[in-house]
């Protein structure tokens, strides 16, 4: 500690180490937040349901998505990434997950929302298994932190069914 440079270096190094600790503590504190999100998805309309030239089924739907994800936000949250996926089983795959819609929610105030929209991404099957298919719509979310660990979870909503014939 005999020179200016030595002291400045020691201080800077120690300060950065403590900064790392602070960020770790901030991230750890996310484990203590009470999260109680809720969501509902209603399918308003099946716009069309066709078999593509290559043989794969495709559906277009209009959905009403309501969700309250405000409780997911903590002091260490940068944004929440939410997406809706259609999940179903076929003989070829045990689980098919097709992402239909997603959004980035940057602030707590915007996390309580209602949106009526047709699927942002195309709902295309690997094959032609969708007629009369029962499927779940799952709202997944990723809570992206300012520092540290990202938490992800979902709400599964079941009971949806596609029509038995193409339209």
């Amino acid at each position: 500690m005999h020179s200016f440079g030595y002291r400045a270096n020691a201080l800077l190094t120690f300060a950065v180490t403590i900064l790392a600790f602070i960020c770790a503590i901030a991230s750890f504190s996310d484990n203590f937040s009470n999260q109680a999100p809720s969501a509902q998805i209603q399918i308003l309309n099946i716009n069309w349901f066709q078999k593509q030239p290559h043989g794969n089924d495709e559906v277009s739907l209009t959905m009403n998505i309501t969700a309250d994800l405000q409780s997911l936000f903590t002091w260490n949250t940068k944004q929440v990434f939410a997406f809706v996926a259609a999940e179903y089983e076929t003989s070829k795959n045990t689980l098919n997950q097709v992402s239909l819609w997603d959004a980035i929610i940057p602030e707590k105030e915007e996390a309580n929302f209602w949106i009526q929209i047709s699927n942002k991404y195309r709902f295309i099957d690997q094959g032609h298994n969708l007629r009369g298919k029962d499927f779940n719509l799952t709202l997944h979310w990723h809570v992206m932190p300012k520092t540290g660990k990202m938490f992800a979870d979902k709400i599964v909503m079941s009971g949806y069914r596609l029509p038995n014939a193409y339209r």
Partner: protein
Amino acid sequence: MDWQGQKVVEQLMQILLVISGVVAVVVGYATESFRAMMLIYAGGVVLATLVTVPNWPFYNHHPLKWLDQSEAEKHPKPQVVAKKRFSKK
């Protein structure tokens, strides 16, 4: 900076930084503001820098007592004896 000063400076630096860190986390968590935590910590780092890095006078209150010139002359420096070199065969 004298030895005593250096010891004090090291301790002060560590204590100031740790306390800034603790206060930053507590205030940030309580006010749910990440920004508050970062600002308080940055302030603490600046404070610690101002207190410990410059060579303030109060770190020089225990200067080393070097040997007096008159006393040094009474004790001559030891002479260096020429070393024998072992030649390689």
